[in-house]
């Protein structure tokens, strides 16, 4: 790198990397941290509603009964009615359309509605920052794009990328240790961060791009752009009849034997344009699904070409699984969580480097502790909404505000960090206990037990971290722990 790039380019890259990074650090930290947790949203949803009936098989009768009951419960039949099938990751079945949604019991009757609780709050915080949906999505998309820019300028600003490839000098100054941590986590995670940034930017900004493209080339017709990329619905005209799900499944098995159905969509139910779509996962493919279309009698119309159409279509439809790590099962999700945490640490350490470079401490040091340690505390604290009548959002705001107040009042970043870490320990310990008390789940291998144990282990690890620092701090004269500034 040193030979390729001039020192001027390196300096400029470092400057823009630092300036941009510091300007967007807090929000980027929030997006990265929530994104890390959202990877496990399916598991959290199961943890949040553990009493929903779970099973891995389904029957055509079950679908027929649930669709009939759904029709009875709603005033008008939705244009697209979704029946989501059980999978290995989520062994639950649910039916939804026009904002109405219920879980399906084993006998086909409808059970509870999915709660819009803590997991929903977490997803919304990551996807749109709880802003109006389109604006929030665009803002988060912009942050994805900026993350990409940060990675590129970071690489350009790093002339010793190979020389320091495996170096972490923890015994140097605090600044050196933070810089090494920042650089190593950044360099080895680069492909992942680029992928997350670009796919995130695509998800957030594709709507904007579609609008512009439609205005430029399609006379303002956005649907035409979407149809060009993802394919259009088939034109069907037939007499109204009941859908033969079994025939459709039989045809699918012959047509695409390796396809694993994940959901059904009944389009235009009860009209002459009625048809059935079966979305199915294909092995070893990153595309979300291939869509197979059937007439009411189960005869195959076509498939949408997500798996074998233009490469652009395949790429566009692979973005979701690639961004959220929802492929190849739980091991990949855990790897995503690990690298997501690394990216979150990179965001925090970037600001830490800047803070240690300054010759003085100010309220910003405290504020940053309130952001970095107050945010996880607030997000985990919002999970109390599972047991209380308060909303996750109000709990989140209250706890985060409290964290910021603690940090700003103590005026001693190291002490306030420990207070918030101990607070997080306590909350992470309390939530599983309350969960076990409320739901009285058996201690066998189930998702709730695993999540509860995960929380307890994280709590113990944090306890060790905070206690370590506490002992370390006790070696320093007490007057050092007084406010670092007035």
């Amino acid at each position, binding site marked *: 790198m040193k030979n390729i790039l001039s020192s001027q380019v390196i300096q400029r890259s470092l400057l823009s990397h630092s300036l941009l990074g510091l300007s967007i650090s807090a929000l980027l930290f929030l997006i990265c941290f929530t994104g890390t947790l959202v990877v496990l949203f399916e598991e959290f949803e199961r943890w949040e509603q553990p009493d929903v009936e779970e099973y891995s098989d389904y029957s055509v009768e079950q679908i027929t009964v649930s669709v009939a009951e759904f029709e009875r419960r709603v005033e008008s039949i939705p244009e697209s009615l979704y029946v989501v099938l059980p999978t290995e990751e989520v062994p639950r079945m649910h039916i939804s359309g026009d904002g109405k949604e219920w879980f399906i019991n084993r006998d086909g009757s409808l059970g509870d509605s999915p709660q819009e609780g803590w997991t929903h709050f977490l997803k919304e915080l990551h996807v749109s920052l709880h802003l109006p949906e389109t604006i929030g999505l665009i803002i988060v998309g912009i942050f994805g794009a900026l993350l990409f820019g940060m990675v590129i300028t970071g690489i350009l600003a790093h002339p010793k990328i190979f020389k320091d490839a495996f170096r972490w000098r923890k015994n140097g100054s605090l600044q050196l240790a933070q810089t090494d941590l920042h650089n190593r986590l950044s360099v*080895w995670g680069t492909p992942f961060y680029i992928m997350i940034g670009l796919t995130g930017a695509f998800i957030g900004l594709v709507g904007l791009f579609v609008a512009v493209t439609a205005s430029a080339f399609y006379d303002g017709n956005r649907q035409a752009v979407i149809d060009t990329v993802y394919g259009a619905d088939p034109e069907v005209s037939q007499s109204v009849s009941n859908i033969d799900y079994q025939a459709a499944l039989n045809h699918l098995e012959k047509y695409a034997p390796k396809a694993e159905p994940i959901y059904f969509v009944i389009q235009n139910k009860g009209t002459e344009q009625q048809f059935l779509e079966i979305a199915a996962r294909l092995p070893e493919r990153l595309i979300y699904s291939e869509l197979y279309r059937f007439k009411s009698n189960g005869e195959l119309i076509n498939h949408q070409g997500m798996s074998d159409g233009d490469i652009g279509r395949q790429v566009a439809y692979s973005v979701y699984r690639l961004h959220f790590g929802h492929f190849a099962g739980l091991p990949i999700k855990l790897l995503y969580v690990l690298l997501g945490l690394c990216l979150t640490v990179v965001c925090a350490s970037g600001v830490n480097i800047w803070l240690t470079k300054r010759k003085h401490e100010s309220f910003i040091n405290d504020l940053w502790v309130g952001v970095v340690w107050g945010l996880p505390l607030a997000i985990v604290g919002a999970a109390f909404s599972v047991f209380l009548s308060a909303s996750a959002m109000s709990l989140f705001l209250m706890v985060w505000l409290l964290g910021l107040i603690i940090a700003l009042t103590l005026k001693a970043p190291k002490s306030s960090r420990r207070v918030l870490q101990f607070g997080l320990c306590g909350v992470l310990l309390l939530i599983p206990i309350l969960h076990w008390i409320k739901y009285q789940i058996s201690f066998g291998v189930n998702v709730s037990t695993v999540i509860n144990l995960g929380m307890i282990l994280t709590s113990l690890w944090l306890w060790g971290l905070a206690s370590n620092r506490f002992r370390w701090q006790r070696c320093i004269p007490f007057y050092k722990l007084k406010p670092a500034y007035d």
Partner: protein
Amino acid sequence: MTWTLPLLLNSLAVGALWKTWLAKQPSKLWLRSFSFSVLVLSLLSWGWIVGPEYGITIWFIVSGIIALVIIGLSAESPLKSSYVRKRSCKPRLIQPISMRQIFQCFVTFLISFGLTLLASVSACLVLTKFLPGTSVNNLVASAFLFPALWSLACCWVLSIEQRSKPIITLISILVFSIVLLSL
């Protein structure tokens, strides 16, 4: 445990890369060649076991994580001496960026935001129109390029103190794109 073989190969490859890095000698060419060969072999084995799409993704992720584990395990341990710790924790001033600079940067970013957006969108529309591929491929390629170009343009504007150069360039791109699109 179908992941065992590629995982072992991947670990071996990154471990060998680490050894190469430790050696720091040009004469260790055989070690370097060996580690890169095993790295390629691990990529192939991932592709063979889980398919090329999963394989490439997992290879990048797993390689990074193995390297980070090695870095964590081989990190130079913190010094215990309170004197050294006290000394080493003392903040050092190496051209720190001031709050004023950050504020200025943020304002510049907001001001340049619109111009960089317009320039990158228009450049991508030109690509959509003139790239030789099918309309689907061109649209998707441009949809990915648009945020990438936008962010790089933002970084470029922020990196140059004399802002007139990037502004003139971005306006030129915008005008040139509009002319091309109106043809």
